[in-house]
């Protein structure tokens, strides 16, 4: 078995799971402040694609991260009507994760932790702590503190001569910057 040594803090850890497209993810249950649906999302133009927008949670404005995008999942695999907001405590900040569907909370008896598979895309692998193997599925345990590293970019200036296609620039820049951040 590929069982890895579990550090003290990992053993006995319960994870809150959720679906993002075709994958199931989990974050430590004590990091989850609450789960909300039906929030009005205000998009943030010019922002990185990770940022789905902003929501108003009882007077507090939270940044919503599009988890599909964060995990580099193809948009086409997204389930319809995905509107769950999982409010997570990341450091001192509250960040809202936009996910497709909530799953059960899994505890030690349910899973076996395994290391992140080597074949994974590096950017994505870097955002995953480990993989929890359940009897019938795998759950990606996320390093949610990596959510704080999301940077937006200042895309090409509006008056840049002969270079008007802001949208394209954005897309290219995202990938580019992301690599820089990680390296």
């Amino acid at each position, binding site marked *: 078995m590929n069982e890895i040594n579990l550090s003290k803090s990992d053993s006995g850890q319960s994870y809150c799971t959720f679906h993002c497209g075709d994958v199931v993810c989990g974050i430590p249950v004590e990091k989850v402040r609450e789960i909300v649906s039906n929030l*009005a999302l*205000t*998009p*943030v*133009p*010019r*922002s*990185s694609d*990770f*940022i789905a*927008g*902003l*929501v*108003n949670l009882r*007077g*507090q*404005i*939270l*940044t919503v991260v599009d988890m599909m995008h964060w995990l580099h999942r193809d948009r086409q695999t997204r389930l319809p009507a995905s509107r769950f907001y999982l409010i997570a405590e990341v450091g001192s*900040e509250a*960040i809202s994760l936009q996910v497709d569907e909530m799953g059960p909370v899994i505890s030690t008896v349910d899973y076996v932790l395994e290391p992140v598979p080597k074949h994974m895309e590096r950017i994505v692998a870097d955002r995953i702590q480990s993989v929890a193997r359940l009897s019938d599925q795998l759950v990606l345990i996320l390093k949610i503190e990596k959510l*704080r590293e*999301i*940077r*937006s*970019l*200042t895309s090409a*200036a*509006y*008056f*840049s*001569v*002969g270079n*008007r296609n*802001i*949208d394209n620039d*954005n897309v290219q820049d995202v990938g580019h910057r992301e690599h820089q951040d990680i390296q």
Partner: protein
Amino acid sequence: MGEHDEFIADFLEECDENLDQLDQELVALEENPRDEGRLRSIFRSVHTIKGSSGFFGFAKIGSLSHEGETLLGRLRDGELIFNRDIASGLLAMSDAIRELLSSIEQTGLEGEKDYSSVHDILVALSNIEVADPSSRSLGEDAAAGSETQQTSRQADSNHEIQPIDLGEDAIDADAVEVTNCIQEAGSIDIGGVEESIDTSINVVPVDADPDSTSDEAVALATDGQHPEKSDERPTDFSVENQSKAGKQIGGGVEPTTIRVDVDLLDQLMDLAGELVLARNSLNRCGDKTHDPRLATVASRISQITTDIQDRVTQTRMLPIGGIWGRFRRIVRDLAIDCGKNVRLELQGEETELDRSLIEAVKDPLTHLIRNSVDHGIENPLDRISAGKNAEGVVKLHARHEQGQVVIEIVDDGAGIDVEKILNKAIARKLISLEDATALSQQDILQFIFEAGFSTAEKVSAISGRGVGMDVVRSHVEKIGGTVQIESRLGVGTTFTIRLPLTLAIVPALVLKVSDHLFAVPQATFAEVVTLGSATKVEWIHDIPVCRLRGQLLPLVWLDQFLGIQRHKNQSDNARFARSQNSQIAILQVDQMRFGLVMDEVVSSQEIVVKPISGAVKAIGAYSAATILGDGIVALILDVSGIARLAGLSAEMHGRLQESDLSLKPGADGKTPLDHGEQPKGVTSKSQEKSYLICEVDGGREVAIAMDLVERLEDVTVESLQRFDTKYVTNYRGKVLQIRSLFASDVTETSDGRKKFAKATKPLVICKYSGSQFGLLVQQILDVVNISEEIQDQSTSTPPLEKESDSDRFTLVNGKVVEVVDLERECHLALGVGG
């Protein structure tokens, strides 16, 4: 000591405040050693520290403050004269106590560190005999003073031996007693009364020194019985107390206040914000239902909400002077250490900003001030040989500007050597040699903010390790501010910190673009004009502009700028037609105006500024967010950020330079509004040439060939420096040479005085054969197309390479207009050739 923990927390906090006040007042006293009121206030601070430390059994603090008090007592009694040594000794005591306090905070104990040297210095200072008793400043006071002091000593010694544990009732009674005494003493000395009240309040909560409270009352009563004394107090002190009471500025007297937990204030602030939102919703309902009763109630609630919001905002506002006091000490100590003469000038101490911002900006400011003294200001000898006053000046200037708080740190020191920085940057491989040539001075100065960047040859104790400026920037940016740097070699350096008013409630306009709503602070808003027949889009080079009362303003289309997709079924033509009915919000920021093209202004309302995450903030286009009446989040546009991102700045200028040679005005395919149907009368046709018609003095009008005009700016006359027949100014970090088209000097009147220093004049920035220069005019009137034979001779060359002067005139609407010979002006401005 477990049961005392919360008392100790109070004690630490109180001592900390007392020490801060002590530092400020000592430095202030050094400047004005005869300020008896201050001396008394210092004495009281030390006395309080001593009393409370005795209560908790902190022997080291007790002993240090005891010696300090003895020294101060002799000063107060006029037995000693305050001087720099004494100030240093007392400041050393303050530092030592601070260290002890931090040790107590961490470990609960005073620690092992030995402070006997500080102790000895204080003792030695107290034992110096004054040679000339006639120089006593407070002779008349001596008797009363020493009497008070004796009483207090007695009280203290009792106190140290036998800590008195009085119940709350007893303390209350004490406070009443104090008040009674004060009332008996009458109102002869308002300053004194306030101080005493203040002291009693400071003392009571920690349950530390009830005896000294009554002792103060005794002292006060004694004061009251000697009315002649109060007459002798320096009047400025009393006046200061009265006028600044409640503001906590430098006067050393805290107002009669109560302490409120900051968390509570934060919650109150949030609730007030929620109330504003609820009110906005209510107003919307009221508008819909048309019920007059609801309207009445809504308007009443609206009024109350506004008031509450005002007051709550006020509770969080502190004058920045509160943290400036400590800078006097920092500058003083540093100047002594470096062997420099430095004067700190403070301006705008009353500028209020949110307390959390004050806290956050304290460290960056401290760092910048240290830098200014250590690196900026030269040694006195160097200064004299550079023809400067031996005493260097560091100015700290705060003000509110366009909904922002602006803090400037200005020194008149050596300035920053841009060459040196560039070399260092190249050496550290921050930039390649080739790229380096393209950098403006402003760009180069930015390297200072890189981590680990230092040009100091040797590392001093104070600074030079290259740690810090990056931290300064990150700290300021963390609270949504910006740091700018300007420096002129040999003249000095200016750091400008701009802070937003986060956590505040600001009036704003809500704009609509497509389906998106954005808020823009009213502070940046000049006006709204409708794009239509009266206001057209024109093009200068590749830049869309509109003309507003003779002023040309660059335009930014908000939807394109933000990459907002319009509905797909809108064809380009429809979109253009829509654009024709758009509105332009004229925004003003950083002394620059531009037009933001959007669909419409939806409403004008007060919005609660809510912080946004760093990821959203880093986009640069949004400063914060708010919640509209219906609960929807709307982003607040960062107007200066948009201007920057849109390239209405040095960047744009650079791009224009690149494109200048290849592009002509109205060139196809390169414009944001590329719809093949250019607005009428906008661009020049091939046979015509556009001229910018400007007025100069005496009603003369001149024409400047538009294709050589790069930008139009407003400059303040103040910012111009005259050299012979031309001027120079700092234009975005570069030296821009300027020719005035005026017959007379614009900066000075005939009697040599500066005139209209604050007035702005339009500056036409031109580019001729690769060189940039400015032309100063009185007013920009119009852009006209002139189709004349003279231009046939000069299709590709600058206009009118004249054989004679007469060629340089043309007719515009029947009026004779002089055509500016840009080649000649360029040469005159740049000092090349004829």
